[in-house]
């Protein structure tokens, strides 16, 4: 099961035996990335479990209901959902072989990611200024660890995507850059899935 590398490498032109070997290699790399994503899911599962166990332990400090601002996390959610869609469009343009549009959609995706990170930093700063720091209660420790870990993942994804854009601009679309774009977009969709659960478990259940 070598997924889209099947499509991906079939577009690279050459159909020799050498190519077939590379093709299998690229497929294995994508499978390896799926396995990484599953292991990353386990990291988030432990953080979610910790949060769920500690969410009522506010130690007399502020609760989620007092802290979470609905417009803020709603905007974050729509920014990330939309960026998952635009990164999908980037992969589609890559398969059409249109490098300019591919880079264009990656830029849109990265900008939406930047909006997301900006809103999250703004939220954290506001919370800390209200005295809701990580040290205040077990609930807040778990909250900042869980949401902050996701935020770090998104930030890393932004740097990664930017690096790939430079590679695309320099080398164009080939078997290697196609695999890189595909993997970066898988990572981005994964971050969206994790956010959907953060939105549901942390924020929606928090303001309930």
């Amino acid at each position, binding site marked *: 099961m070598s997924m889209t590398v099947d*499509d991906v490498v079939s577009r690279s032109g050459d159909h020799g035996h050498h190519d077939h070997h590379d093709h299998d290699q690229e497929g294995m790399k994508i499978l390896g990335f799926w396995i990484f994503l*599953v292991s990353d899911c*386990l990291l988030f599962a432990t953080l979610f479990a910790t949060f769920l166990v500690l969410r009522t332990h506010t130690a007399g400090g502020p609760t989620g209901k007092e802290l979470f601002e609905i417009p803020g996390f709603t905007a974050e959610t729509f920014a990330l959902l939309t960026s998952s869609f635009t990164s999908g469009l980037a992969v589609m343009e890559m398969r059409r072989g249109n490098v300019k549009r591919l880079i264009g959609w990656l830029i849109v995706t990265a900008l939406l990611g930047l909006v997301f990170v900006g809103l999250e930093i703004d939220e954290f700063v506001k919370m800390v200024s209200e005295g809701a720091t990580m040290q205040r209660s077990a609930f807040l420790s778990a909250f900042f660890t869980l949401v902050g870990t996701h935020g770090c993942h998104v930030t890393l994804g932004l740097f990664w995507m930017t690096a790939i854009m430079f590679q695309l601009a320099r080398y164009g679309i080939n078997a290697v850059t196609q695999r890189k774009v595909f993997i970066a977009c898988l990572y981005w969709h994964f971050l969206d899935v994790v956010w959907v659960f953060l939105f549901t478990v942390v924020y929606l259940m928090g303001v309930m």
Partner: protein
Amino acid sequence: MAGGHKHAAQANHHESPKMYIIGYILSLVLTVAAFWLVLAHVMSTTLLIITILVLATLQIFVQLFFFMHVTEGEGPNYHGMALILGAIFIITIVFGSLWIMSFNAQVQ
């Protein structure tokens, strides 16, 4: 390259933005539904929590099938196996922790 035609056909199929647009609309509908249910608070809290968790789980499938192309390719579905194993571990970690920590409340 064996099955080159099949690959080409798959590639053509996926060049349409239709799947991405449907996936995007579905993810928006699921998110807005969860959001509205919580704000309107139309059902009991327990039922509400279960419903929004189901909506979030459906989002995983939207991402996997419409955006992440999990069903593509040929041969054994190793991604699928890894994901199912991961899901078993995740459910064990999350619900196992909640279950075991709930005893704490009974002891106190």
